[in-house]
């Protein structure tokens, strides 16, 4: 289980990364200039050292070396500057989940290109490094970059995992995230999640007239891009599993409706042609279905429709408000919210709407349930005075809080089911910010965004 990943997989990965055309349309040149892009290091970081033995693991990440310092078309600059940038991205990724104590390139000596595969273990050991991440950046004749990455155990003087990617210059950050994913997965035994993207709502303006725009960014806040202009209020986005579409709520023409936005063509269509308002869209894990909620005559019920369009199927049919909904990872069950008992509580049903039963019985109200991609937990908003993010088992047992603030809501999961994102609203000012917390609840940090943010939704790890 803890063995290095098979090289055949790495080769397949390299082939996929070598065809960046599709990915480039998802991640075009950042709107925010690199200098203004907030670095992940700026977030509040609460690191605990007593969590487990490897929580204090010292991971040293010197600047990636280059065989020849040449200009590239990447925003990061020359290959030498990219080498430093890559090491900084990896450092930020590993630092921000609270599990490691990485030392980045600014505090470390540079390495030579020949050293990449043969570290000076004695030197690193003398500096107190337990783990070492080294790599190289080489410019290819075709304009692409070959980025190599390796993780070494300094005391064992052994390579634990390595990989290399042939990427277009604009994709250099993805290679850094892939490298961080390799290190994270190898050292924690968990699934990777850094090479992923986030859709959210960017908020500006006064509390009584906030502008709310659909926006997307990488998992560390880079490559930020606004999708909508803000003329129509946008809310509650969700990336499709293949990142090609985003479902979200828009007040286009003054009517709140769910649209399916196509990222490549920048066009959108209504999820359902209806005279009634539609809310709270969600994808099925395979991307074939969209769940949404529709209000009719004051009651709100949950429907599903094929992502390709067509006739909707009503899944709930009770007086009151049935809303939201999140599929189990196998697509067989849906957890949702209903006030049919008198207040918001969490229910589970089969994907066809059968066997609806309540699972939350711990007092207060329970809202916005989201099934973990690992299948074991449900994250939700607990309302008992304050709004707090909490998790429970899929049968409602073992409820525990992860946050304790005035108003934290709308948790969504990182692709590996270990980190939860949510948004936090300040009393009075209404200022909203995006936060991440791990399942211990002890490692909490703010995700930097160019403006205020809400409704964060993580997409899966990219191919």
């Amino acid at each position, binding site marked *: 289980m803890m063995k290095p990943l098979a090289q055949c997989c790495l080769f397949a990965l390299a082939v996929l990364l070598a065809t960046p055309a599709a990915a480039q349309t998802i991640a075009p040149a950042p709107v925010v200039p690199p200098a203004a892009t907030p670095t992940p290091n700026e977030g509040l970081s609460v690191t605990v050292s007593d969590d487990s033995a490897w929580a204090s693991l010292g991971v040293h990440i010197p600047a990636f070396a280059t065989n020849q310092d040449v200009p590239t078309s990447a925003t990061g600059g020359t290959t030498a500057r990219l080498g430093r940038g890559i090491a900084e991205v990896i450092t930020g990724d590993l630092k921000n989940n609270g599990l490691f104590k990485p030392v980045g390139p600014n505090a470390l000596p540079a390495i030579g290109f020949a050293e990449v595969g043969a570290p000076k273990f004695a030197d690193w050991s003398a500096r107190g490094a337990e783990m070492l991440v080294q790599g190289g950046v080489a410019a290819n004749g075709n304009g692409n970059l070959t980025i190599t990455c390796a993780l070494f155990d300094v005391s064992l003087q052994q390579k634990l995992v390595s990989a290399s990617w042939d990427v277009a210059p604009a994709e250099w950050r993805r290679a850094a995230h892939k490298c961080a994913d390799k290190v994270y997965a190898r050292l924690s035994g968990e699934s990777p999640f850094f090479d992923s993207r986030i859709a959210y709502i960017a908020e500006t303006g006064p509390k009584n007239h906030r502008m709310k725009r659909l926006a997307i960014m990488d998992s560390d806040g880079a490559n930020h891009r606004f999708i909508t202009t803000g003329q129509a209020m946008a*809310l509650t986005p969700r990336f499709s599993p293949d990142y090609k579409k985003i479902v979200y*709520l828009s007040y286009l023409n003054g009517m709140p409706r769910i649209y399916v936005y196509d990222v490549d063509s920048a066009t959108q269509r209504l999820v359902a042609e209806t005279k009634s308002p539609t809310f709270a869209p969600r994808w099925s894990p395979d991307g074939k279905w969209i769940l949404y*909620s529709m209000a009719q*005559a004051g009651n709100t019920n949950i429907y599903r429709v094929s992502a390709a369009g067509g006739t909707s199927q009503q899944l709930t049919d009770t007086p009151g408000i049935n809303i939201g909904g999140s599929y189990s990872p196998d697509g067989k069950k849906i957890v949702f919210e209903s006030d049919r008992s008198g207040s918001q509580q969490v229910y589970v049903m089969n994907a066809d709407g059968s066997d609806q039963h309540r699972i939350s019985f711990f007092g207060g109200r329970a*809202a*916005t349930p989201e099934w973990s991609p690992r299948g074991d937990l449900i994250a939700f908003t607990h*309302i008992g005075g304050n709004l707090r993010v909490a998790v429970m088992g899929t049968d409602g047992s073992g409820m525990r809080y992860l946050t304790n603030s005035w*108003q934290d809501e709308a948790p969504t999961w990182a692709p590996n089911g270990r980190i939860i994102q949510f948004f936090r609203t300040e009393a009075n000012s209404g200022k909203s910010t995006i936060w991440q917390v791990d399942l211990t609840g002890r490692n909490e940090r703010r995700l930097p965004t160019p403006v205020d943010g809400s409704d964060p939704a993580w997409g899966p790890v990219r191919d």
Partner: protein
Amino acid sequence: MAQSHVIRFGGAAMLALALSACGAKPPKELPPEPGSNVSTTVSTTDTQTAPVNQTVAGSPADFTAQMMGRDTIHFALDKYNIDPVAGSALQGQAAWLLKYPLRHATIEGHADERGTRDYNLALGERRATAAKNFLVSLGVAADRLTTVSYGKERPVDTASTEEAWAKNRRAVTVVVE
């Protein structure tokens, strides 16, 4: 109760008309709205305090002026039922809407900030629908009334206090231009 309200409504209407007629220029001769028996030749009085504000009878501004705040009704926490105060306000709205049968209105439903975003959108819709159903029960044609929910996204009072939240749990009737 209904009768007393109609009397009050009538008083407000006369006052508004009186104020609307207090401009520097003589009031324009306007074609009467269908169903309107109100004469436009109201004597000018109290020219010292009246604003220069010519409100056209049957216009959205006229509705707002005549309702005097009763274009908005309020709800208890997490509730959508129409209480007697809200019912009285809706009767005033219905009287105006019945008087100007060509006018359409949108009822905007809102929630306070102490709930989740999705649920509050549905709750706002539920409140707007409750107001609409009440107006329909008073004889306003359903196809003249549309609803829209803004959930907790458009507070009228931006403070985070019980008092502000009570103001924000509301349904506002807006006559369409």
